[in-house]
């Protein structure tokens, strides 16, 4: 049985392409995805380590589970859609709060996905598939709409996150290193994103091992409380 050593969580508004990013990386393909239900769990072998990756559903009703998905995470990938500014705003408004349960030295990566829709890349099939939600009717028609969100906006968000987490910019990787623009469809930057993160996660795993398991309770010496009531939780 493989036990995960580190944990990476993908967060972001719905339809920004979290599942597509992960599938592009894990399975080297860009399938027609359907909305993820709840969270999906994958294991990736990276050198001698097992890294677990949680792909979450960017839907509000699953926020109850967000803290579980993020607990003890070593890295969190915040994903937005470069053609849809609101998805970047949502990251700060709704998803940042979920990361409170991540480990204290958690890494953050900010990923603008779907660059193929705004740059020179091919567009037609994508729009037919209906993968680009809530685009204005105008940009729907034009194959090369200008990018709605610039990389600088992501860098600004990254700096805000550091402030929120009360981290010093000197202690964490530089913003330029942690902000990516990707296309799950063409595979642009996808490997770079995951492999950069894995390489950063590995020393963290080693550090955590040296410190012993923090924040967790050794349950082998813990007696569970007797269950008093049955039935499912409300």
């Amino acid at each position: 049985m493989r036990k995960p050593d580190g944990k990476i969580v993908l967060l972001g508004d719905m339809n920004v392409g979290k599942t597509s990013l992960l599938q592009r990386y894990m399975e080297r393909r860009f399938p027609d995805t359907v909305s993820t239900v709840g969270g999906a769990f994958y294991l990736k072998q990276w050198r001698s380590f097992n890294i677990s990756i949680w792909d979450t559903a960017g839907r509000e009703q699953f926020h109850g589970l967000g803290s579980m998905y993020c607990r003890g995470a070593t890295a969190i990938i915040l994903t937005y859609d470069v053609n849809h500014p609101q998805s970047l705003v949502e990251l700060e408004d709704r998803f940042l709060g979920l990361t409170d349960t991540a480990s204290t030295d958690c890494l953050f990566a900010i990923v603008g996905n779907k660059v193929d829709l705004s740059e020179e890349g091919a567009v037609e099939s994508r729009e037919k598939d209906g993968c680009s939600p809530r685009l204005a009717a105008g940009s729907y028609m034009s194959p090369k709409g200008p990018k709605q969100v610039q990389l600088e906006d992501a860098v600004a968000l990254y700096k805000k996150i550091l402030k929120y987490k009360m981290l010093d910019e000197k202690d964490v990787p530089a913003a330029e290193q942690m902000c990516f623009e990707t296309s799950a469809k063409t595979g642009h930057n996808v490997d770079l994103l995951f492999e950069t993160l894995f390489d950063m996660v590995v020393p963290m795993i080693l550090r955590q091992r040296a410190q012993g398991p923090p924040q967790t309770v050794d349950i082998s010496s813990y007696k569970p409380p007797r269950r008093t009531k049955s039935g499912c939780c409300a």
Partner: protein
Amino acid sequence: MEAGGDTAAPAPGDAEDLEDTRSPSEEAGDSGGVHEEPPDPREEGLEETGSEIKDQPPGLQSPLPQLEAPSCTCRLWDPAASENSPLDDPESGSGGQGGDPSDEDWRSKRKHVFVLSEAGKPIYSRYGSVEALSTTMGVMTALVSFVQSAGDAIRAIYAEDHKLVFLQQGPLLLVAVSRTPQSVAQLRGELLAVHAQIVSTLTRASVARIFARKQNYDLRRLLAGSERTLDRLLDSVEQDPGALLLGAVRCVPLARPLRDALGSLLRRCTAPGLALSVLAVGGQLVTAAQERNVLAECRLDPADLQLLLNWVGAPAFAAGEAWAPVCLPRFNPDGFFYAYVARLDATPVCLLLLSTDPEAFHDMATCRRLVEDGMHTLGAMRALGEAVSFSKAPSAIALAYSVQAVGASGLRHFLYKPLDIPDHHRQLPQFTSPELEAPYSREEERQRLSDLYHRLHARLHSTSRPLRLIYHVGEKETLLAWVTSKFELYTCLSPLVTKAGAILVVTKLLRWVKKEEDRLFIRYPPKYSTPPAVPAASMDQASHNGLFPGP
């Protein structure tokens, strides 16, 4: 109130030959009901409706005249909504249909299902994009509130060949508009299943809470993605009749020793908080085990089980291990279970573990590995592989046997629901049916067969005059439906079969089912699993959860 009269078209000279042969007592003289059967939906029927709609003058009609003159109901598809841009809404998952009510393609659909909020906000539409339908949905709200203002509730409208069925569930309004021969009761059952599916994602309590707080809330945001599950549910009614019609689940045919072994394996593999484990393939049940502590008084309702089987068939569960909240509407419409869903060994065999604990993912993952190991020891994967054709796409319903296995020539298809399974049928209604083969391999043909089954079912279960036996000679097939205290049976036979021949075939079929029943059905209720005394299995994994899960 039933608005409008039953104007269901009298079959205009259709070669409908419907008679009861051996029906006892009062049903004997049922010939009066025969001519009520509408004709088979044929192509000319489609065109007829199309031209009728074209003739409608534009502009919104007040709901009142529609109520009084039900034949005008087609005006519901008002061209006034055409100015809405038919933007393809990817979140609605409704495919490429424009959904514009003036769109010919959209109007020619046989059955529409809509879900809207009390305020008239669109939530779901089977076809087309809901944005384009806001006018249509407005009309529906108007109809409902018009009747409501008289202190009554609208249930159904019969309008020539259309049936409109309304179902109010809390703040949600569900509407079916159908040209299929399904009865109002059957359509209502379908709407209830759609509602149950929505509740399973959100819980009844949270739907009520959301709308109490904000009446004009756009529920689509919360349901994004679930539309496809609803689409699949509604498609299954037409393409693979049985589950919803008979209110029963379909079991994978499996030798009894193996099924029993799998059942006890599931009972052995427990974890704290685990309430229910289900092993399924392609929407069919292999076996299930319940935990005594959680589900002791209240056994799992078959409708809930069917809902889960439909739900885990979602393509979203095809890869990785998923962890998601799910509500079982019959068990408790206001609470969530947490579901662990994984495909075993990358086959379509799917394990579903329901836990009461939102943090128990790793416990359930451990549990899955135990099940997987156990199945390898049993060699169950190979046996299941033989029982189910894995070559098919996982989304396709992988049926296990051909009708040839019965060895009755002239028999094309059947649905058989036993009613005499000892102490069990009340807990777990089941049915069996063979693969739909030629001539029912095309979509339209399947639809036609489904229509025929629905029509026979409606006759057998008619509230005013239930029948026990129907022998129906159609142009393309002969059907025989029969309900006794021991079973409910629908058979589809070749059109050339004689009445005596049909009885022979059915006798043969019944004998075959009797012989095979241990394989076709779960004959003996699986026992409860007992919770583990010490949570031995989950030691190392549970440390990831921080604290040990409480109830």
